[in-house]
């Protein structure tokens, strides 16, 4: 395998190691299997932004999620090549920060610079890829400014920078 150390493009053996490390964090029995319900977390933590549809897509040939066997588990052997392809081809690209900001601004119809928790909750649980109540509660606990009960989205975006080097 040719390694050009000057480029910052991902190199396959490195990618394999990264995927394995993430996989192993959920491989409780050390038998190279993870519960399919955890696979979303793994894919996200590898820097991808799949949609819910992507995560449940069992039909597309290259989907990393299609490899479910009868036990409801995904095997590393099959996950590894599929996920490698995903990473090399940037299949589920991340959302750039400015786009996210725009997204929040769309929801903030009155341009207040913040969202009321109820507003956010309404969107998250009724539109798009719906949040469960549990997810919503957790999000509000994490995001809302407890003093004045508002979600200051601009600050959040600044603070929650995604580490590009994964």
């Amino acid at each position, binding site marked *: 395998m040719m390694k050009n150390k000057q480029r910052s493009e991902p190199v396959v053996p490195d990618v394999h190691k990264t995927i394995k490390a993430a996989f192993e964090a959920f491989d409780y029995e050390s038998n190279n299997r993870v519960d399919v319900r955890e696979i979303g*977390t793994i894919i996200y*933590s590898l820097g991808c932004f799949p949609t819910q549809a992507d995560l449940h897509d069992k039909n597309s040939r290259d989907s990393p999620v299609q490899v479910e066997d009868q036990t409801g588990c995904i095997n590393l052997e099959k996950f590894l090549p599929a996920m490698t392809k995903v990473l090399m081809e940037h299949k589920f690209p991340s959302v750039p920060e400015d786009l996210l900001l725009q*997204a929040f601004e769309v929801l903030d119809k009155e341009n207040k610079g913040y969202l009321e928790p109820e507003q956010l909750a309404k969107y998250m649980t009724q539109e798009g890829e719906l*949040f469960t109540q549990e997810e919503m509660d957790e*999000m509000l606990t994490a995001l809302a400014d407890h003093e004045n009960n508002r979600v200051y989205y601009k600050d959040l975006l600044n603070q929650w920078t995604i580490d590009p080097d994964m």
Partner: protein
Amino acid sequence: MGCGVSKSDQFHKGSRKAVTTIRSAVLIQRWYRQYIARTEMKRRYTWHIFQSIEYSGEQAQIKLYNFLGYLMDNFTPASNERNLISHIFRENEVCRDAEWERYFCYKNIEVPEIYSGPHLTFPLTVEQAVGLVEAFRNKKQLHSRYVLQLLLETWRQLRMLPNINRISTCQSKEITICGDLHGQLDDLLLIFYKNDMPSLENPYVFNGDFVDRGKDSIEILLILFSFLLVYPSEVHLNRGNHEDHIINLRYGFTKEVLTKYKLHGKRILKLLQKIFSWLPLATVIDQKVLVLHGGISDTTDLAILARVDRHNYVSALRPPKKRHQSSAGMSIDSDMDLDTSCRHKSFLRQNSLAFLKPINRQSFQNRSLQDFSDRLKVSAVEEVEISGRRRSILDKDINPPENERTAAASSESLNSLTVVDEWKQILDLLWSDPMTQDGCVPNEVRGGGCYWGPDVTEDFLNRHNLQLIIRSHECKQEGYEFCHNRKVLTLFSASNYYDVGSNRGAYVKLGPDLVPYLIQYQASSMIRELTVRQSAGRTERSALKVLREQVFAHKSDLLCAIKRFDRNNTGLVCVSDWASAVESVMHLGLPWRMLRSQLVPGKIHGGMIDYHEWFNELAIKGVNADHIDQSLLETLYRHRSTLETIFRIVDYDNSGFISIEDFQQTWKLLSVYLKMEITDDTIADLIVTIDRNQDGSIDIEEFMEAFRLTDKKSRLERGRSMFMGTATDLTKLDGDPNI
């Protein structure tokens, strides 16, 4: 589309807006889910960091103990080195009950007028026990006179208890079971707050590991013992692997007692040694639920456990010495055994440390307690022969009948051979952990006990007609965890164990239906104000601080390993090679690439790490440490827990000081253990550095101060370094701006 607002335009705008809203929602949802996933990943490896360092610390302690045991067995009684450490292997010299009570007499200890803590009168009443809890909540300390008195009463009580307590949930009483507390008084207070204190209607089982690591271990013990005395049928205590004076030397309990009780601490500790050995081993509820601290193995047999003389096992790490019966029928703890049997042992070597052959150092360092027991099997047989000979000399005057003597001798030989089995039973009970795979294998990570699988659980439960095992011993993020098809429940009651926000604690209530009902909690006023994100971040920073210290402690080895990837000496390696090098040295099995950005704060130059810059970021700041060889400092830093433990062992009278002479002997010991050359000159240098007031004695605390890690980042972090310090250190760290 044209300009101007027509009806159709408005419609399109509206629907476009609706689409945009949905798309925005989707983006936000996706972004948020991604963030949570990464937080979860970080939480897992943070956990992994703490746990692997914790267990390797336990393993280190066992290795140290084995090393010292090896020394004990292989050097003449007169040798200096042996004298330094022999006292920790000595069972209590005072033997008969009357002599015991005299030794621990509290009666001449005066309680001064200014003492503002609680006064105890015996027999203890429930009001006093409750008062004690209140006093400790208000940070009072119980006077040593009352401590000794309380401990003596506790000892008397414990001696009456069987190895296995059998209790029942009769009259629809619910039994509350608590796991490890580890000196965290806040958690015990929280449990009492949520669940009321023990009473006739409110029975409790406390499942071991009451002490070590936390700063209020003695207070927890005193509270538990008080309630044991007041409600002997309702309060049950199981022994944990930390109810062991050898472990306490490393993990802070010894230090805590000596610091809080400067005058009588030593006596208190000695009495506690005895008490720990008398703690029951397990509790069975309604003949169906087994509660014990660690776990089981494929050889665990409750019948054997019920029969053992549990008090022979003062420390679970070493099998009991040979016992011989006196003519009065009482068993005598005797020091003489060790010396006389040593003289007869064929493999005794007349050596001092200076002549220790290098071949053997390797073997005892790698040995786990399993290997140790094999060695014992051989010597047990020899010991029977020796004691047989000895007995006949001693019994000449007494003239027991012929057949009785031979019968006694042969049953003794039987008993001796089962000493090993008995010991293993207890070791497994206190140290084992469950695993997901079937089978039963030695627990190499901890160094004692086994890993046991679901098949072993199944078999064990069937054989003993039980339905559930409740155990503790392992920290769990939610405070509890079921495994083995819900037949094993791990219960951990020390919340925020690794750091604030790391985990919840839990206790379980069991009614007549024997269905476990779990209650979780987290003791910290701080934690409630932190958001999920913030508390996870804190724990992560703390774990990383600990990890950075570990990494630094292996600097030389790391440099070597990294250089192998940098043949051209560019000073740079790629992240991948860096990760491989680090794992090859640290052996912690962590996702180094994920941790890279936290461990190597400098910039990456095109995907490459400047490793010299990385190492320079870390430095030891110490008392005139500059003139001391860096690699020596590093080795000492790496082993500072071991070093401190050895010091505490050598400091026989627990004064906190050791003489220069003993200090030199300690270094010789350490140099053998660590396979490292320390010249007399180096030691002299160290002494000059440390004995600042030149009074011929070394202050242990002062010495340990010399080895603190500072690096630019960690100064800003107030995370607790739980595994490098001991209980008192933690409180010191709070105020220290240099940490």
